[in-house]
């Protein structure tokens, strides 16, 4: 429903448009000739008349008949007119009923007290027919206008109730949609202060397989329900693609495609997405339309900054959109900070913005995330000086640790009953054509983890598969050299080379095969990956990579060491272009043993 907007002209009501308004008129008078005169005039104008002969019956009829207009004599037997009006005005009512005292002029003092008792007007007896008609018409216009205004007011109340109901529902659905275990991750601190009942800013956090943490801070244009509605489609895609291990660029591209398809041209969503990989010490960011994301050292200095490099989501068509991310290697622990413009543009009473410098100053209060986060929250509160924020204010703080030794955490696999177990096999080959645009690892992982016995191994299998597949692609087909990563700024160079070479890849293929079977009363998954590249001197590189040590990590790369720790056996063959490994799924038990 469309509410009457402010400034809309209510009084296009011209006198003639109101003459058809039929009134119910209460006449209270104990003199029959006076009643007669009024009655004749009123009825000749088409109005309905109710007659009372004293104050008490006037009061009763007022309640039972709910008249639109009252003519009240003053001197009446029993209850007089002034007392009756005093009682009438004491009644609870939602509508205004004008009361005209109709009395002889010599009782001027009575008329004054009548008006003070709640009368609206007076007429001196005897009044001419002409004057009576004019008076009744004048009040008919006012009453009709009042009726219209009351109609609008009722409509407004209805509309407000409906809107409040929608807001309640919206807030409920939003809170259910946006609540996720990831937001309670020990690395994650966040706040979202809405400008209205609920926020159009959206915060999402989740772990990808292999323990990488993905976060998203989205700010839909505007605030309130309309903004929240625009941002809502993002949650599901973000969480499901993160859970499947899709790279950040693919997630961002999908989010943009979704919003472009459903939002009108003037709606969009600014967003920052970050992928924090503690094991590989990288932070990857895509920022479209949000203030700078930054990495703050424990000393409170900005070590890295990611300004907005793209237009917000939902504007560009797929062909022109870029999901290009920026990845940085971190050497020291610190806090990654993402925010919506509501934070930097938070206004105090004097109209001054908190600003990015204000935010950084607040964060410099301590060296640990917890305290810094509290400082920021209190600082924003103090800056707003009790005023409500004009825009939604939201912020993510991710405390990024340096872990010297990272071991993938396993949950002990459940035992599998022999009778529940069957062999399973999958063979796939991707040629250059497909490798250019398909996210192979999440796709294959999806197929593999459909198998009941492998479901709970999603994390471990993701690490093994992505490591082996990326080696085959990066080194086998793209000819990239891992040594590049060890240079200062080398990681970024490596990633750029990877993007460039992948786009130009025109020949070669990678074959993957999986075999789930029984070996020595255990369920094992044999994985083999073969690429069409030249291979490498595996004997030299793998003389002793069985133990996961820091020394080995440096020499052989963290990835291969990790695969060695996750698999029972890793065997290179051919020219080094083929790798086979055995991943132990669980022990098999006979049915009567369980």
């Amino acid at each position, binding site marked *: 429903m469309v509410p009457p907007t402010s400034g809309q002209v209510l009084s296009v009501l011209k006198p003639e448009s109101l003459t058809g308004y039929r009134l119910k008129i209460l006449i209270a008078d104990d003199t029959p000739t006076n009643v007669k005169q009024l009655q004749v005039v009123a009825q000749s104008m088409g109005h309905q008349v109710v007659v009372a002969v004293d104050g008490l019956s006037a009061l009763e009829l007022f309640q039972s008949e709910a008249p639109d207009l009252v003519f009240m004599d003053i001197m009446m037997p029993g209850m007089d007119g002034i007392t009756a009006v005093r009682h009438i005005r004491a009644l609870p009512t939602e509508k205004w009923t004008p009361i005209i005292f109709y009395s002889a002029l010599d009782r001027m003092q009575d008329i004054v007290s009548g008006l003070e008792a709640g009368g609206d007007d007076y007429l001196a007896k005897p009044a001419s027919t002409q004057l009576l008609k004019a008076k009744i018409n004048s009040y008919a216009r006012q009453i009709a206008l009042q009726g219209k205004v009351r109609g609008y007011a009722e409509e407004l109340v209805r509309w407000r109730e409906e809107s409040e109901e929608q807001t309640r529902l919206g807030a409920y659905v939003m809170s259910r949609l946006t609540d996720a275990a990831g937001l309670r991750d020990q690395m994650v601190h966040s706040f979202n202060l809405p400008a209205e009942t609920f926020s159009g800013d959206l915060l999402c956090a989740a772990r990808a397989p292999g323990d990488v943490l993905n976060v998203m801070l989205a700010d839909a*244009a*505007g605030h309130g329900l309309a903004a929240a509605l625009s941002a809502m489609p993002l949650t599901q895609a973000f969480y499901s693609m993160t859970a499947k291990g899709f790279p950040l660029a693919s997630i961002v591209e999908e989010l943009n495609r979704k919003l472009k398809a459903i939002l009108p*041209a*003037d*709606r969009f969503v600014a967003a920052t997405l970050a992928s924090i990989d503690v094991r590989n010490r990288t932070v990857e960011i895509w920022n479209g*339309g949000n203030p700078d994301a930054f990495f703050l050292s424990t000393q409170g200095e900005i070590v890295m900054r990611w300004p*907005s490099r793209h*237009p917000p989501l939902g504007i560009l068509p797929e062909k022109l959109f870029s999901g290009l991310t920026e990845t940085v290697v971190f050497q020291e622990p610190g806090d990654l900070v993402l925010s919506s413009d509501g934070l930097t543009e938070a206004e105090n009473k004097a109209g001054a913005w908190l600003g990015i410098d204000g935010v950084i100053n607040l964060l410099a209060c301590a060296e640990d995330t917890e305290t810094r986060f509290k400082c920021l929250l209190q600082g924003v509160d103090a800056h707003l000086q009790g005023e409500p924020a004009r825009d939604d204010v939201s912020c993510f703080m991710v405390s990024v640790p340096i872990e010297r030794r990272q071991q993938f955490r396993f949950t002990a696999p459940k035992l599998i009953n022999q009778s529940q177990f069957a062999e399973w096999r999958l063979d796939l080959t991707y040629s250059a054509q497909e490798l250019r645009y398909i996210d192979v690892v999440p796709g294959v992982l999806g197929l593999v983890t459909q198998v009941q016995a492998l479901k709970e191994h999603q994390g471990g299998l993701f690490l093994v598969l992505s490591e082996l597949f990326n080696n085959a692609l990066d080194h086998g087909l793209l000819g990239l050299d891992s040594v590049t990563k060890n240079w200062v700024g080398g990681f970024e160079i490596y990633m750029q080379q990877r993007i460039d070479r992948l786009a130009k890849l025109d020949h070669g293929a990678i074959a993957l095969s999986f075999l789930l079977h029984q070996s020595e009363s255990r369920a094992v998954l044999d994985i083999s990956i073969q690429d069409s590249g030249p291979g490498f001197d595996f004997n030299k590189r793998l003389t002793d990579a069985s133990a996961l040590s820091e020394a080995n990590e440096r020499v052989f790369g963290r990835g291969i060491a990790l695969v060695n720790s996750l698999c029972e056996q890793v065997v290179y063959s051919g020219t080094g272009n083929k790798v086979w490994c055995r991943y132990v799924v669980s022990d098999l038990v006979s049915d009567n043993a369980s």
Partner: protein
Amino acid sequence: MQIATDMTGSRAVLNLNGRFDFHSHRDFRSAYEKVMEAAEVRDIEINFRQVDYLDSSALGMLLLLREKAEAAGKNVALAGLQGMVKQVLEIANFGKLFTVRD
């Protein structure tokens, strides 16, 4: 916000003055619709020199104008960017969507 439109030949300049926000919706639309109807206009320049504030609904209006102009085969350029206006448009990377002039 006040809008003064200069049309000379194939070029139309919309000179904006004041706060460009949600409340400017009707004025901005009627200003660009007039320009959109003029067949001889090929280039629409939005002059922000006198604009001191720009919010996200203003960005939405610019996107709407861009879509309408594209359909009508007209070019939209943003000019006179300064201060807060320039900053907001830069963060939103509108330089990738519109021609930007000094």
